């Protein structure tokens, strides 16, 4: 449940992207070229990531503008191969939480 999720310690990580599709500077975009930031929150049970619009001029992330999402349930998918963000209520729940 969301309560359990919140009481578990979580690790946050992030990664920038210049665009929604892979291109030659996707791995290491310069600050001025960043348009999207992927924010990940992980616990023992989940890794939840939202890729949101990012403005490099004022360093703001717009969580209203979600480009894509990822959700992996570690118990059944430890290698994070099966993204269930779009196809279950879990995805809907985490969108609501954020």
């Amino acid at each position, binding site marked *: 449940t969301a309560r359990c999720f919140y009481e578990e310690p979580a690790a946050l*990580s*992030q990664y920038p992207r210049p665009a929604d599709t892979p291109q030659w500077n*996707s791995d290491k975009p310069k600050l001025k070229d960043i348009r999207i930031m992927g924010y990940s929150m992980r616990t023992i049970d989940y890794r939840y990531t939202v890729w949101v619009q990012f403005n490099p001029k004022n360093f703001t992330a717009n969580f209203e503008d979600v480009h894509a999402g990822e959700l992996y349930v570690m118990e059944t998918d430890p290698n994070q191969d099966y993204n269930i963000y779009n196809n279950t209520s879990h995805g809907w729940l985490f969108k609501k939480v954020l």
Partner: protein
Amino acid sequence: DGMNILFIVVDDLRPVLGCYGDKLVKSPNIDQLASRSVVFSNAYAQQALCAPSRVSFLTGRRPDTTRLYDFYSYWRVHAGNYSTMPQYFKENGYVTLSVGKVFHPGVSSNHSDDYPYSWSIPPFHPSTEKYENDKTCRGKDGKLYANLVCPVDVTEMPKGTLPDIQSTAEAIRLLNVMKDKKQKFFLAVGYHKPHIPLRYPQEFLKLYPLENIPLAPDPWVPEKLPSVAYNPWTDIRRRDDVEALNVSFPYGPLPEEFQRQIRQSYYAAVSYLDVQVGLLLSALDNVGLSNNTMVVFTADHGWSLGEHGEWAKYSNFDVATRVPLMFYVPGMTTPSASQGMRVFPYLDPFSHNVNSVPQGQSKKVVELVSLFPTLAELAGLQVPPACPEPSLHVGLCTEGTSLVRYFSASEGKEGCGG
């Protein structure tokens, strides 16, 4: 009166270590350190990229506060004049020393590894560091290339050595100097391998016959992976041997045989690193400092070894962000050894077969941004306060939390029905 600190950070090391349960790797010396340490099995970097991760854990601030997501800004100029962990120790009476790659070199650490703020003397960089990306790999045709897969005859290398071998020698020299000075020290040693190029003494290949090297369990690009989440591993595509494979962009894949060779060389580079760590820790015994020096062992981030059709780091996948993290604290994680007894006898990966079990393990999900408050507490220094939101204007605070409370906490899911 506070212990010394030996802070070992490894470039691009994912937890492919015996003490993390990897059955293939030969890492006896790091496993031995783990057997005397508390080991965190779920530790994560805040960004899977060298400079942003290192500036984050060295300042105790997240990338959104350091505002470093690439390599091209210095936090003190671009974001805020944040104190760093070594600077804090220096201001509390420690001699602080940097060997090898601790800060990422260049703009992001002011072309000086943040000296003199963070370090008491100019940081040491091995003289052979500058050859790291030169054409030093001998190809099948006998010519020299700048390959990704690069087992070498060390005697043929520029100056007949490799950067991490030089770093170990310098770190041991500094331990001898500090032993005589009887002054508390914070010695940070940054090892370059297994960061690419996978350039290591060729004899380590014998530990990993190619027929024993499996592909990644999931070498395909996942069906529902958003395209924005995929990293096209452009850095390794530019190495001579990979370029010659003419692999399609962005999804490849690499030929399976070559995937095995990359994985083989990554493991070989880990064992080569294990030897360097073993020599360094054995030297700690030799100078009689094992009983009053804490050792921290970690990495700046992980590395994809073909999982999800990806290589390198540059993503939010666990294989790219999960890192080894262990703390040896004499008298806390192990009983203090009697005078003269060796705590870290050197173990040869070519002959040592016993995998030692970590002394203590924590499954808690923790972050590298917590290193600063954890080491401050372990050293008996005032723990920096938690940062307010936002904290761009605050010089000394931390966005992590001290992990010392987990050192002896009973495991299990507190707060969620135990």
